[in-house]
């Protein structure tokens, strides 16, 4: 009797799962396998794919003796430069987290009108996309852009942000801060702050703790799971970031300084039809994310206070 009931339930379970599972199979599982296979081929979509073994990975990650005889050169120096750019742009992550936390603390003061401010802070995150990137290209315009106009009023002469190698990446990081600081991370921190037991602060107040001491001894450790979560997710996203904004704002320039790995994959696959190579880069990216996440998990796990 019991086993028949179970079978009915199991059948129902599979039935409920089926629509999602078909999609999961068709557009996630199989493509992952196909992509791995693709990474070992050379294919321009016109002729038939050609198995090349590890050649893609060798030309991507390998090194060779430099022609002058001294030292070694990377087989694909561009790839390493794009990796550098991707990591450079991730410098915005810790800064953004600090700003988000600060905003959350400010919003968590028992003040009137907090919902109003929260709504405003969330607007950039909400509207992120091509429209905002075009807006920021206009703001960063060297001649008549908003930023240089405001700086001019303060007596500072601003550069052409998106046309100078030294400025393009910091400009993108700053834009990222503006877009993201009041967004998801701030709301997560706010939720974390609201979950802290007020009794802890009362006890600290009795001991005569200063606001900073309270923050260091209570708020920061109690928020460590939130910080940990945000950091892990941001790093995963950070490795994949940079395509939309660079495509709209700089086309990867000036001098490829805003080209990231995801832009490289786009170019390989959809501009140059190097499908096998693109798949190989995407797998290197995947492995990098996996390693970084495992590393963060092990290192961060020790610092998190539950």
């Amino acid at each position, binding site marked *: 009797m019991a086993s028949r009931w179970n079978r009915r*339930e*199991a059948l*129902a379970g599979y039935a*409920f799962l089926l*629509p*999602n599972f078909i*999609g*999961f199979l068709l*557009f*996630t*599982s199989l*493509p992952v396998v*196909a992509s791995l296979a*693709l990474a070992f081929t050379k294919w321009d*979509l016109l002729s038939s794919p050609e198995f090349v073994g590890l050649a893609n990975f060798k030309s991507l990650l390998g090194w060779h003796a430099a022609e002058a005889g001294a030292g070694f050169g990377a087989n694909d120096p561009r790839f390493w430069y794009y990796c550098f750019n991707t990591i450079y742009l991730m410098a915005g992550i810790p800064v953004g987290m600090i700003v988000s936390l600060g905003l959350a603390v*400010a*919003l968590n*003061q028992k*003040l009137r009108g907090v919902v109003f*401010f*929260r709504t405003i*802070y*969330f607007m*950039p995150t*909400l*509207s992120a996309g*091509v*429209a*905002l990137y*075009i*807006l920021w290209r*206009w*703001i960063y*315009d*060297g001649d*008549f852009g*908003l930023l*240089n*106009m405001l700086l*001019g*009023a303060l007596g500072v*002469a601003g550069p052409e942000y998106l046309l100078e190698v030294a400025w393009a990446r910091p400009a993108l990081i700053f834009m990222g801060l*503006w877009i993201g600081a009041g967004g998801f991370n701030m*709301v*997560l921190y706010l*939720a974390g702050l609201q979950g802290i037991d007020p009794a802890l602060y009362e006890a600290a107040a009795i001991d005569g703790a200063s606001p900073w001491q309270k923050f260091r001894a209570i708020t920061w450790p109690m928020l460590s799971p*939130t910080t940990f*979560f945000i950091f892990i997710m941001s790093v*995963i996203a950070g490795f*994949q970031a940079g395509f939309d904004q660079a*495509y*709209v704002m700089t086309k990867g320039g000036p001098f490829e300084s805003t080209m990231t790995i*995801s832009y490289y994959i*786009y170019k390989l*696959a*959809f501009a140059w039809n190097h499908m096998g190579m*693109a*798949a190989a880069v*995407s797998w290197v990216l995947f492995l990098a994310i*996996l390693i970084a996440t495992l590393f963060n998990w092990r290192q961060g796990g020790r610092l998190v206070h539950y």
Partner: protein
Amino acid sequence: MIEGGTARKTFMHIAWYLALGVVGLTMLTPFFWMISTSLKRPEEVMTYPPTWLPCEYYVDLAGEAVEVTVVGRRFELRLPSGGELDVPVRSVRRRAFAQPRLIDPETGFETPVRIIGGLADVRVIEPGLHKGKRFTSPASDLHWRFAPVWGNYTRACRAVPFFRGYINSLTVALAITIGQVVTSSMAAFAFARLSFPGRDKLFMAYLATMMIPVAVTMIPVFILLKQMPLVLNDLFHTDFWTRELWLGRFLIGRAVGVDSYFGLIAPALFTAYGTFLLRQFFMGIPRDLEDAARIDGSGYFGIYRRIILPLSKPAIATLTIFTFMAAWKNFLWPLVITESDDMQVLSVMLASLQTKYTTDWTALMAGSVIQLVPMLIVFVIGQRYFIEGIKLGAVKG
């Protein structure tokens, strides 16, 4: 002692509000700038000093306010050596806002200078006695009033088919949203409420896929969709699958593959993320209700339909809003899967508007406003669910 405390408290309140206000202003100013630019005349964004609002200029001519356009501006500059000269503002470097520099076009040599007075070269545009007349007026005699123009919007709409873009974006975003909510709520119900062999392993597999970069799956899916029509044609001995389909004069793309609604929608119909989010919520619904329904003779589908879904409105609403927003602003996939103008979604259209009008800022800002407005409406309606949803998504499983 008590009074000192309240004074301190009031001071802290003011400080907090000041901080909140400054950040709020930082967040709002670019939006204001976007709307303001979209309502300016194209030549107006190239003026010095820049204006916050779209405005038109007029001068007092014999007691009569006459509308004028500012053609060029000249400034008297004092050189550090002591001399004075009169030059058009264009030959003064934009750094002139702060520390004006006069550039010798021959040698490129820059001389720091100080502006002592401005003159505007103006042309009368209001019909009447003075129409078309050009004259020079001291900048201080130039008056302005708020005057938005709507021409940028029509110009942007003529350059790319924004109306069609709206239809495409709405169709795609709605279809993806409905598909995701239906399939992931069903799957979440199975994961949270039903037991079957392999359930937990499968769920772990779902979770694991959330770490896979989009790029990994995107390339094979693209190839699949690109080849699909050809393979189907071969299979059925027809050319239907590569044909463009029309509904009267309305192009509805191809049946499958590149330039099809199928290609835009299908790969995004199923998510591990939505399944995960809803499962977390379903787990928290008390089982008693379910048992009661079961005694009343409800089947599994009845429980899903009449108990679980109605009780999960906040979570469903959250997923709905998130999915809609993500689908609305999605860029990379629609970019690679569409080729014809009529099949593009708004975000891609906006990017191609930028290709056409590289620095026509007024038209570009008008286009940006066109894309952002629906999002802001959805946000204002669903604000509460949105914020709650973020907290929900962070609950650890």
